[in-house]
């Protein structure tokens, strides 16, 4: 975005960069990095809440009693693969290969949607087994944490689809592939959070 049309010619500019910004990172990208760093605290607080409450069942059913590790492993794998396709999309836009770029964007969004379908299925199954949102503190914490992650994935899907539409309209080309990169940063972050959630929440058994 904010790349100068001509390199800075100022001899007094004692820093190294030929870019318009002091850090050499564009404003948009730096803002996304900062935003994602704040998200770490958001998920950190939610994960901590769950970890404190994971055995607070009030003698009702606990989320840990219901986890279906094989199923969630598959949906986690799907989400993980969407990071790969995101990279492929960015790479395609970087080469100005718009057809492939659009296709990979679409695939990434689809994989995200599959993951969300998995979450919807999981929530439904848990609910039918007696774990409602208000059942106990563990349930509230579990649904809030994974629900927040799901909301982030959904927003990511909306962003990917918006990019796809923009690319179809010719507004998104190789020249502004950084936009794809920034959405990609968000998408990878959401994936990363899930890896953390999956490990800490699902895989580590309750004592």
């Amino acid at each position, binding site marked *: 975005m904010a790349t100068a049309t001509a390199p800075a010619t100022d001899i007094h500019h004692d820093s190294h960069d030929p870019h318009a910004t002091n850090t050499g990172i564009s404003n948009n990208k730096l803002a996304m990095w900062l935003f994602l760093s704040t998200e770490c605290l958001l998920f950190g607080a939610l994960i901590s809440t769950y970890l404190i409450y994971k055995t607070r069942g009030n003698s009702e059913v606990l989320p840990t009693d219901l986890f279906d590790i094989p199923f969630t492993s598959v949906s986690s794998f799907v989400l993980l693969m969407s990071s790969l396709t995101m990279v492929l999309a960015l790479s395609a836009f970087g080469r100005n290969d718009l057809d492939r770029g659009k296709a990979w964007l679409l695939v990434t969004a689809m994989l995200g949607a599959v993951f969300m379908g998995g979450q919807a299925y999981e929530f439904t199954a848990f609910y039918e087994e007696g774990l409602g949102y208000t059942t106990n503190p563990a349930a509230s914490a579990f649904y809030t944490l994974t629900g927040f992650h799901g909301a982030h994935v959904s927003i990511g899907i909306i962003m990917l689809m918006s990019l796809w539409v923009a690319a179809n309209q010719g507004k998104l080309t190789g020249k*502004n592939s950084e*936009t794809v990169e920034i959405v990609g940063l968000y998408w990878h972050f959401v994936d990363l959070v899930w890896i953390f959630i999956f490990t800490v929440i699902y895989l580590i058994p309750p004592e």
Partner: protein
Amino acid sequence: MAIIEEPLALTSGEQHAERPLGVLTRPQANGSWKDWVSTVDHKKIGIMYGVAAMFFFLVGGLEALLIRTQLAFPESGFLSADVYNQIFTMHGVTMIFLFVMPFAAAFANYLIPLQIGARDVAFPRLNALSFWVWLSGAIFLNTSWIVGGGGADCGWFCYSPNSGITFSPTNGVDFYAIGLLITGIASLVSAVNLAVTCLNMRAPGMSLFRMPVLTWMLLVTQFLLAFALPVITVALLLLLFDRQFDSQFFDPEAGADPLLWQHLFWIFGHPEVYIIILPSFGIISEVIPAFSRKPIFGYSFMVFSGIAIGFMGWGVWAHHMFVSGIGPISVFAFSMATMFIAVPTGVKILNWLATMWGGKLNFSTAMLFAVGTVTMFTIGGLSGVTHSLAPADTQQTDTYYIVAHFHYVIFGGGVLGLFAGVYFWWPKVFGHLLDERRGKIHFWAMLIGFNLTFGPMHVLGLQGMSRRINTYSSGFGFEFWNLVATIGSYILGASVLYFLWNVYKSKKDAPNLPAPGPDPWDARSLEWSIPSPTPEHNFDEIPVIESQDDWWFRKYNIEDDGSVVRISSAEDAAQKGDAVGVHLPSPSFWPLVLAIGLPLIGYGLIFNLWLCVVGGLLTGGAIYAWVLEPVDDPDAGAHGHDDHRDGGDPDGELATVGAAGDDMEGED
């Protein structure tokens, strides 16, 4: 996302304005009120922050006077216990979130670009968004008096289970939670925006360690905001879910732990103390050198102690919770950390004193406020260190001693410093000085009123008077000091009104007085190198920075023998502000539209979910309209690229300024 900004920015020769979504054209500045509601100019936004914060200062001050009136005499029936709870809660919330933070944001918005030599912040539209979202949240919060069945009544820290629906059945706490969530979004957006501005938008040669101390402290503040707000966001959401959707986060009967709220709140709440105080520290670090006629003593110590405070502020939150049973090891660790954080703060106080030492002191109003800040904050800081001794703190918890302490810190350290900034930068912002004689009366009235109000609270607290209780019995020896405190609070209130009188009168008298010129205080940082009031484009040409206090060295030279020689008058050295055709980011209505959607979602959550749909559509639509809006109105492109000569990199600079189209995704 910033999908289209590059192709559409200035490339088209078309003369018709784009109509994104066919609703609103990109507005153009023409001198009407629309300039203000659609502005993306950091200076106008800063002024609006200041004005709105001042309004809420009066609201919070009125609430304070109600509290003090109730407490003037024992067993007073002026306010019922229920109303008293609401008033002191809303007083705290208003003063912290609706006055001190936005008032500091006013300085941050106005001054950061000027001090680093930029034409605007990194994301001008997001900047406008921050203001409007904050304002909509502030108004939303206060409408609970009208439609929420009263204000929140749980204290500004809103401990559970008091904040639960059982003990707080009105909608006040819902308004509290949603209102603070909305203002939190504003602060978070602003934090990212201003941090990027400091990191990315500095003028050539303005390395990080040439930035003025104020900008540094504001940068640290933005990072504190960026990391503290997500935590309170989670806490508020959990509270909201408990109240609205019957989740079980804070219900002890269901096995939940109310301490979770305390931890989440204070992990935010203690950095918040530094969010409040650091801007003020930064301001007086500009004021004291200017009126001591010396550079700041130990610049790098000032900067690094600010950074150290920023880091250590995260490790002391549980000293708010010493009596909650967190265990001896935690108490010990947080005691030590709390003592330790006094060290960088002490470094700052030493450096201010050392700056004044041997200086040619000029006690202008701004300087008086700055010195008042140092002294009052020192008192507050010392009583704060007494809290780090857990056994003593156990006695002091929930007494008026605490109230005295944090008012000395927040009012004495924070607000007095902000007023120093008001008097210091007023000529830069409005082009005329605030009257010094009235200013000094304002200062002394405020200082005396402040000490009369909060000084006696130390005594009351040590005598055992509880805070948050609506009255006290006679015969405990509380009567005299309470009456003194109440009288003091009225003096304090009067001093604020006198300040507003000074503002009005100074403006009225201004045409008959000589203009202050670009640099009335013979100061040191870049904002004084441009005319007063600041021209819309800030700098005619982006300055090239060669040293710390670059502007001062354009006026003075240090000879080989160490003597200081004036080489240029400020008028000669300053820019003329007469550049034409400087390309500026175009105004936009979408930040305002987006901001209006958020309180609608809030009302919807409380009253009727359908309203959420309306608010959601408004917000979502505004986001898309925002993204699709051309970054620069083609009509405004008449200025073209060749607007000024090659000081800096105009194209890159402008492209950067214009690149506001940003990601609003994920603002939970």
